[in-house]
């Protein structure tokens, strides 16, 4: 019985801690006419950030960044979430693989 109680206590602490850890700030970025807007965004360094990418085009895009080790297909007219960081201060370029000429952007961690 005490064992069961200890497990429950442990799990509730774990849940509490993880819900605190999950509370990463959300930063929004849109794709419109194959361009990211904003194409330059600042995020706090040393902190996990939840990037919400809204694709307003009817075509899919692939969010890609070698520097961030991120790669995700985003269907047309849909949303996607990509967690990044905690990042060291610096610039982290990203691009849309399906439209690499126009869909370019930089995330600045500071």
């Amino acid at each position, binding site marked *: 019985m005490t064992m069961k109680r200890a497990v429950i206590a442990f799990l509730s602490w774990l849940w509490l801690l993880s819900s605190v*850890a*999950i509370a*990463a700030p959300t930063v929004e970025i849109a794709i419109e006419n194959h361009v990211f807007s904003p194409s330059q965004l600042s995020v706090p360094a040393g902190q*996990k950030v*939840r990037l919400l990418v809204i694709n307003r085009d*009817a*075509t*899919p895009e*692939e969010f890609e960044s*070698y*520097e961030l*080790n*991120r*790669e*995700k*297909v*985003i*269907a*047309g*007219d*849909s*949303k*996607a*979430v*990509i*967690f*990044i*960081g*905690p990042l*060291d201060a610096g610039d982290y370029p990203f691009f849309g*693989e*399906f*439209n*690499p*000429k126009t869909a370019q952007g930089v995330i600045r961690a500071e």
Partner: protein
Amino acid sequence: MLLDAVVIVLREVLEAALLISLLLALSRLTETGIRWLLVAFASGGLAALGYAANIAVISESFDYAGQELLNASLQGVIWLAVLGLFIFSQRRPYQHQVLALFMALTVALALARELSEILLYVQSYGEVSGNMPTVLAGALIGLVTGSSIGVLMYFSLLWLGQPRIISNVAHGFLAVVIGGILTQSVSLLEQVDYLPALAPLWDSSSWLPERSLAGQLLYALLGYEATPSAWHLAAYLLGLGSLAAVFFWQRRIWSCA
């Protein structure tokens, strides 16, 4: 448009082409035939169609983590299928149905993920741009280029001559390719916050950028990461180590037998 299509398709095809060429070499050594490959193309192609058609629903499921969870699962099963293959690939007499099953499963799952992205791109951009022939031509060039690297790999392996050497090298390359595939699933799980992100262990992007041609090739072949975290390293070692362990375990059994 043409060049974009070439690059996108080539990047996706490269990994599958390498996997297929390594498995074909093993298939030849074990006289398993190539019917498994046709089955894998058919089932992998169908799965890719289904994936591409439902990508929006899949992506937004599991609180926007659906795509990553599905891809990481596919990659995990690919690892297990190759583990299964390694258990039987040196065991005599060869059990062709079992070998064919593991090979087909590996290729079908790899194709499901990689073809779905190509289908999505070609279908939507071909339609929107009104320039389907250009997109298709680019895709074809990418497909042929990627496949020829696979063909080159296949014949380089055969050129080694001695079956035992071919077998060792093919198993070795398979193990590193799988190590690379598992590092990709780590990035996917970090991306949706199912694994806590860790700082990179090193940064070799100024020496060998991932976006360069050599970087892309090494990415497909060895799972090259310019900024790997401890998770990446652990996943790589898990893939490589588990396959090496099974390989040497089986070799000890069957070389004495």
